[in-house]
């Protein structure tokens, strides 16, 4: 990892964020709707609208507003929310924590579910592909693959509704709508997030399991695998030590994508479970035309995606030196 490489990645990071925030700003100026008229509603007087617009600096041309925003953003001043009249930083701190907790928990679930099950399924798939297994085991594998396929095709929000209904209303494992903020009671906060996180994690885990199995089976026919077996390596040993090393590359890339998808997907799950997170705030701020909040959230989400991809690259290079950039 040379200095040049690091500089290049940082450069890409900065340019990406700049382009995205510019596009978001322009998109916002093009779509109809105006924060001031939205706020003042149907009983607003013309004078009041003009006055408020100049209070918020909205009477200035778009490039002036953009650079003013950029300037204060870079210096750490995220501005003040139009609709809530409180600083964006204050408004977002709780929401970012909530969404980050939810996303991380969902990611942990994805790993916890997909890694063991994926490996297990792979192991038995390898054996069965060698034709040495009973019809019972083949049936199990077919059933597992089919189940996996079904879970994968159910969208998270629907899983969310089913989970709320079954675990919330029938089994009473949790109380729908009774979200507790982190500051109120951290334990209850995490407890409430379990089922939403599970709703996000299930379809994603199914995808990772399928990917692990496919990837492993792809490698299983290679010469090096046959060599490893013939050298006396056991099923698990060859799978974990030889096959996985190669099979993990696409999985890790996919996991990085998954994590950024989870962050974006939490927007929908937050709606279903009434979690006051960043996603719900983003939706509301867009419909309120609350530019300072939207811009900040867009930059946060873009940064997460870029950083995760960078992380995936680094991990892959660590595992497979062949893709290391020289």
């Amino acid at each position, binding site marked *: 990892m040379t200095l040049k490489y690091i500089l290049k990645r940082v450069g890409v990071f900065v340019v990406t964020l700049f382009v995205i925030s510019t596009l978001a700003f322009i998109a916002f100026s093009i779509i109809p709707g105006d924060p001031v008229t939205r706020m003042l509603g149907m009983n607003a*007087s013309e004078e009041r609208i003009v006055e408020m617009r100049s209070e918020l600096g909205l009477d200035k041309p778009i490039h002036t507003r953009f650079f003013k925003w950029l300037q204060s953003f870079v210096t750490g001043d995220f501005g003040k929310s139009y*609709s809530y009249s409180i600083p964006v930083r204050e408004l977002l701190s709780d929401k970012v924590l909530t969404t980050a907790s939810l996303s991380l928990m969902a990611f942990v679930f994805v790993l916890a579910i997909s890694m063991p099950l994926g490996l297990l399924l792979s192991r038995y798939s390898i054996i069965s592909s060698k034709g040495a297994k009973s019809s019972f085991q083949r049936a199990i594998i077919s059933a597992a693959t089919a189940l996996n396929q079904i879970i994968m095709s159910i969208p998270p929000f629907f899983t969310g509704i089913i989970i709320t209904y079954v675990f919330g209303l029938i089994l*009473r494992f949790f109380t729908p709508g*009774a979200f507790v903020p982190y500051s109120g009671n951290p334990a209850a906060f995490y407890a409430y997030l379990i089922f939403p996180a599970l709703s996000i994690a299930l379809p994603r885990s199914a995808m990772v399991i399928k990917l692990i199995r496919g990837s492993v089976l792809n490698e299983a026919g290679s010469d090096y695998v046959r060599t490893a077996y013939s050298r006396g390596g056991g099923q698990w040993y060859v799978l974990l*030590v030889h096959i996985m090393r190669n099979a993990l590359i696409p999985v890790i890339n996919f996991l990085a994508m998954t994590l950024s998808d989870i962050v974006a997907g939490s927007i929908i799950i937050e*709606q279903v479970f*009434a979690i006051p997170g960043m996603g*719900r705030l983003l939706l509301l701020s867009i419909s309120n035309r609350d530019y300072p909040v939207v811009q900040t959230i867009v930059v946060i989400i873009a940064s997460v995606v870029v950083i995760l991809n960078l992380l995936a690259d680094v991990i892959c290079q660590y595992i497979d030196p062949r893709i290391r950039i020289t």
Partner: protein
Amino acid sequence: MFAFFIGRVYHVLTRVPPYGGCEVQYEGESSKMKHARRTIVVLLCVTMLLLMVAGCNRNEPQESQTQTESPDTTEPVRDDIVIGIAQDIDVSLDPHLMTSAASRAVLFNVFEGLVKPTPEGFLAPAVASSFEISESGDTFTFTLRDNILFHNGEPVTAQDVVYSISRVSGFYNDGTALIPAFSIVESVTAEDENTIVIKTTVPNIEFLSFLTAAIIPENYDAQETAPVGTGPYMYVSRSPQENLIFEKFDDYWGDVPSITHVTYRILDNTEALMMALRSGTVDFCSHLMSSQMAELQGLGYNFEIGTMNLVQAVYLNNAVAPFDNVEVRRALAHAINRSEIMDVLADGLGVPVGSSMYPAFSKYFTAELADYYDYDPQKAKSLLSEAGYPDGFTMEIVVPSNHGPHIDTATVVVEQLREIGVTATIRLVEWSTWIDDTYRGRNFEATVVGVDASAMTARAMLERFSSTNGSNFINFSNAEYDEVFAAAISATNDEDQVLLYKELELILTQQAANLYIQDLCDIIAINEDISGFEFYPLFVEDLARLYYK
């Protein structure tokens, strides 16, 4: 299965040293490979750890469930209430800058004006203990209530009242009234410690109903984030998109509320709101649909059915063809089947209206106007032919996408218009687009919305249709209407004024300015242990009257 898996991993782990030891015997196995093996081992360990963490986490909900449920089951009497609201109070909490109806409904419990509305539709003294309106209708004299306190413990002085009224009237900024009706205020002065006199530039006896505008302390500048008023409840905290918390104000001048803690929980997703209601975490929720009421039957709620206090109509842009032709508008009015719409929307609940006035304004409301145009497609067709449209025409109905009832209404209207040969299409727009483009830009043919009143006056409903009014989004222009309106607002006698306002309503109906439909029904679910709920003629919810049985 997991135990087996863990066992095998352990097996592999324990085999690492010997394999590492004889790795020189393997052709091509380098130290990098060894490195990689270690990586995988670490990865697996992490996975196991995560599994265990996840396993532990899964046990938690049972514990928290017992925690959250215990107050319901063990304590028979509660002193808190949780109110579910579908729309966040997403504006500044400053009462003079607050504009959305939803915010007004909530902060009605925190702020009071010199007078405040009653459920019967009258104005009762609040911060003022009594008031007097001069014969000429342009001088309002108020006597300040004795020993009245703000939530921060400071006494309310005549100076605070002068400050509040001056502030809404725009005396402290460039002269733009924060609430448009206050632009007629000429002066506000404190005659002595207890007497405040407000003078207006023109006589306006209805101005009193705008004096429900909040009285706030003069030397306090955090109204936007930590509002202080004189109402029965005081503001405690708010977390955007999560909740809003009030507590009763023990030094309230009137009857101190019975319920101590109030939590407004923001549940802006219908599904989430229903789940919360079904699980019993919410005690009070308004604006439900009749289907939702049916779903909640037998789950411990009582239902109150009232109206939303708005006029829902297909508002027509009177300035664009063919709606600039009164015959066309009348033809459409005959084509609308109100009862069918009301059946589809809420099983017939709601009150039909025939002009821009809703029933809660009982003094002004003329119920018969709803029957002015009977449902008669044949007549509608012949009127259309006479107006020069024998084959009908095409039109577009703009509907804000966040209002389910309006979308449903538009859908039924499209079908009804099809019967008389008019092809209507629906265009859904975001609320802010609607405000900007449709309402302010007046760039539309027809739109389905509900129009409400910001204060308890007929003027708030009828003023917008005078031809030069800035809020006349339908471009209604009628010389007779303007004339009668001018007479109505300058009337100094209440009876005359009522008659004039009724005349205005009749003109709107005769001119078929809009296709009037109904005042939508408002269904409220309340925990069956709570009593005392009353509807107001305004869009507000008075919590101070609620109590546990």
